[in-house]
């Protein structure tokens, strides 16, 4: 605390008029009433960390059950609850709130804004999340248990064959949706209206660019999700027949509406990670980002294409060949802008003066492993091949490569990159490297063999399996437990920084780091850029 005050004196020129605001209330009321973008960013990040471990412990239950064939620890219904709630918690509780938290912390500092444009709405959009997840997780302790229809809650599993946890699930998703939409609106208004003079569109850091596009995706598809869960609710409780053939509805239509939301959703979970990697790679290669404009265009193209590929999740539902070909080719087309991005990251590193601190290690791992996930995605995009891969562990391997070694590694890289700016101290490089290598090895033990068992025909979402998959699954489970344990190292690193244990960080922190956020002192004072900074050049 005393350190924070001395910091604010040092940086008095950046916030002369609002010194009184530095005397923020303490304890509960500080965090509950806060409208400060940095406080709210911290809340988002800590909440997401808690959810990461909640969802992670469910994954540990899944892997413990799958360690051996047969049923050991949990009954099949509880296993289904675990896969379902694990997915929901990780998607809506861990990955998405982390990105919103990072946007809260970094976007105003990157564009030279004093705060988010709508600070009170910001507070509300955060505090809806603990409410939503309390509702969702409370169903685990109710009679009949939590939702068990998979995170995709296909009808009629979620309507005819579900229990009353559906109602809790629907209201929880409504709250998460409102929270995400408000968060996205806030980010858009901030970036549109509060850029410092001279911060033109093509000077925005890529993290900001990827977030504008993500925010528009959120605004476009989260309401569709709200609509589809509402239809599930009325089908189950109010006698409508949206997805009930007996009443003239169609269960396949559920999948169309869900994936119309669901496919843009997967880009919501990866585009901000692209932004993070695009910030980190130039800093540690000590070269400006290669192909800035093409990065922006590629991100926008991916966002556009994400709206016209949804039925590639549904090749086996029986589509005419023309539709299958359309969705196959549009899906493969996404590889082009994604390839542009990977090429640009590699070209940025090319002949750079590279150093390999923890953020850079995670960023390089991201580039390699996300590409593996992208390639298995291309395999899944091939319609005739998809009939074999559908609903096997190959799909599980694919989306965990893009979400864990993609989105999550991007997030971890970002946390290591920016935590000296948040806390004012360097993380322990030795622990960070240790965390990296443990994570890298265990995550590949965990997910890589899933490709093979999937191609050999092991179905997903089933608590038992044929004997020939036993050795592979034992190996996968060991990888899973090691990956779970490795993340405890991450928590240790983060809490050491929060407790201010470590070397004091300079304002620039990294030798090659460029941008407005590196011009304010570390830790960043409670209020930054009360008077807009002067924008010199570059992105």
């Amino acid at each position, binding site marked *: 605390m005393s350190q924070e005050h001395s910091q604010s004196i040092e940086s008095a020129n950046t916030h002369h008029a609002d010194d009184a605001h530095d005397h923020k209330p303490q304890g509960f009321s500080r965090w509950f009433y806060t409208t400060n973008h940095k406080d709210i960013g911290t809340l988002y990040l800590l909440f997401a960390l808690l959810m990461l471990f909640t969802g992670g412990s469910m994954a540990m239950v899944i892997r413990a059950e799958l360690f051996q064939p047969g049923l050991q620890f949990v009954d099949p219904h509880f296993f289904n609850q675990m896969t379902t709630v694990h997915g929901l918690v990780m998607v809506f509780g861990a990955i998405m709130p982390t990105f919103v938290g990072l946007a809260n912390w970094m976007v105003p500092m990157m564009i030279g804004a004093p705060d988010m*444009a*709508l600070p009170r709405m910001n507070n509300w959009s955060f505090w809806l999340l603990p409410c939503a997840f309390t509702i969702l997780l409370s169903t685990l302790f109710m009679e009949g248990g939590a939702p068990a229809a998979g995170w995709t809650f296909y009808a009629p599993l979620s309507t005819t064959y579900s229990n009353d946890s559906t109602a809790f699930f629907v209201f929880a998703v409504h709250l998460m949706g409102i929270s995400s*939409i408000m968060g*996205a*609106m806030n980010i*858009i*208004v901030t970036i*549109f*209206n509060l850029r410092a003079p001279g911060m033109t569109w093509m000077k925005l850091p890529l993290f900001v660019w990827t977030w504008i596009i993500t925010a528009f995706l959120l*605004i*476009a*598809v*989260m*309401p*569709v*999700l*709200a*609509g*589809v869960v509402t*239809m599930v609710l009325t089908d189950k409780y109010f*006698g409508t*027949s*949206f997805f009930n*053939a*007996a*009443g*003239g509805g*169609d269960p*396949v*239509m559920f999948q*169309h*509406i869900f994936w*119309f*939301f669901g496919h843009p959703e997967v880009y919501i979970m990866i585009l901000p990670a692209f932004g993070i990697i695009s910030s980190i790679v130039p800093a540690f290669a000590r070269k400006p980002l290669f192909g800035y404009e093409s990065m922006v265009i590629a991100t926008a193209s991916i966002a556009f294409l994400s709206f016209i590929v949804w039925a590639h999740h549904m090749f086996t539902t*029986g*589509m*005419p060949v023309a*539709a299958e070909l359309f969705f196959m080719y549009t899906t493969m087309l996404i590889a082009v802008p994604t390839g542009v991005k990977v090429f640009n990251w590699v070209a940025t590193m090319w002949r750079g003066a590279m150093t390999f601190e923890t953020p850079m290690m995670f960023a390089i791992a991201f580039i390699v492993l996300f590409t593996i996930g992208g390639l298995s995605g291309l395999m899944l995009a091939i319609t005739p091949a998809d009939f074999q891969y559908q609903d096997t562990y190959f799909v599980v391997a694919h989306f965990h490569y893009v979400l864990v070694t993609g989105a999550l590694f991007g997030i971890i890289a970002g946390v290591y990159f920016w935590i000296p700016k948040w806390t004012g101290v360097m993380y322990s490089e030795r622990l960070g490297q240790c965390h990296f290598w443990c994570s890298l090895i265990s995550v590949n033990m965990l997910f890589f063999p899933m490709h093979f068992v999937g191609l050999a025909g092991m179905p997903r979402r089933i608590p038992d399996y044929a004997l020939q998959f036993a050795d592979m699954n034992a190996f996968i489970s060991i990888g899973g437990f090691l990956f779970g344990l490795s993340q405890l190292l991450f928590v240790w690193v983060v809490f050491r920084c929060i407790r201010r244990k470590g070397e004091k960080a300079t304002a620039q922190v990294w030798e090659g780091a460029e941008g407005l956020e590196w011009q304010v002192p570390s830790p960043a004072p409670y209020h930054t850029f009360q008077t807009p900074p002067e924008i010199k050049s570059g992105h």
Partner: protein
Amino acid sequence: MENQRNSHQPLLRKLLMISIAMFFFGFALVPLYDVFCRMTGLNGKTANTAAAPSTRIDTSRRIKVEFIANRDDSIPWNFAAEVSTIELNPGAIKVVNFHVKNLSAQAMIGRAVPSVSPGAAARYFKKIECFCFAEQPLDAHGEKNMPVQFYIDPQLPAEYSTITLSYRLYKSQGQTVNR
């Protein structure tokens, strides 16, 4: 500060409009889906109204038509087609009977929902009369034959040689007697 907040209002209002519009777009997908499927015949749904009788018979080829009858758990009836397959020339009109028997001691109403596979052939499957056009009441332990009179449109593309007509029988919602 107050001015600054007001300057956010126009943009915020637009964004709010987009998200509300997208919420209703989600619901608009329901009728759009139906229209799209009716235009393209993608989901194997056949017309719910009687077709005009055929005007010519194509004797150059024969089409195999298979019949499938199954029922939902909600309705305790026997439901079966009297024949499992027939062969016919495109344009020839045929009548096939489906037999239902109510196994319960309650009168109830059934409703059969048709589906044609392959879906793209659905629009060439013309029903002149069908028990699926109306709800079918049946007394306790009652039974009856329900006819479907149909022909295959001679314009059916050459690549289709077999068409499957499937019915799924449901208990009619809200019309149950004695429940």
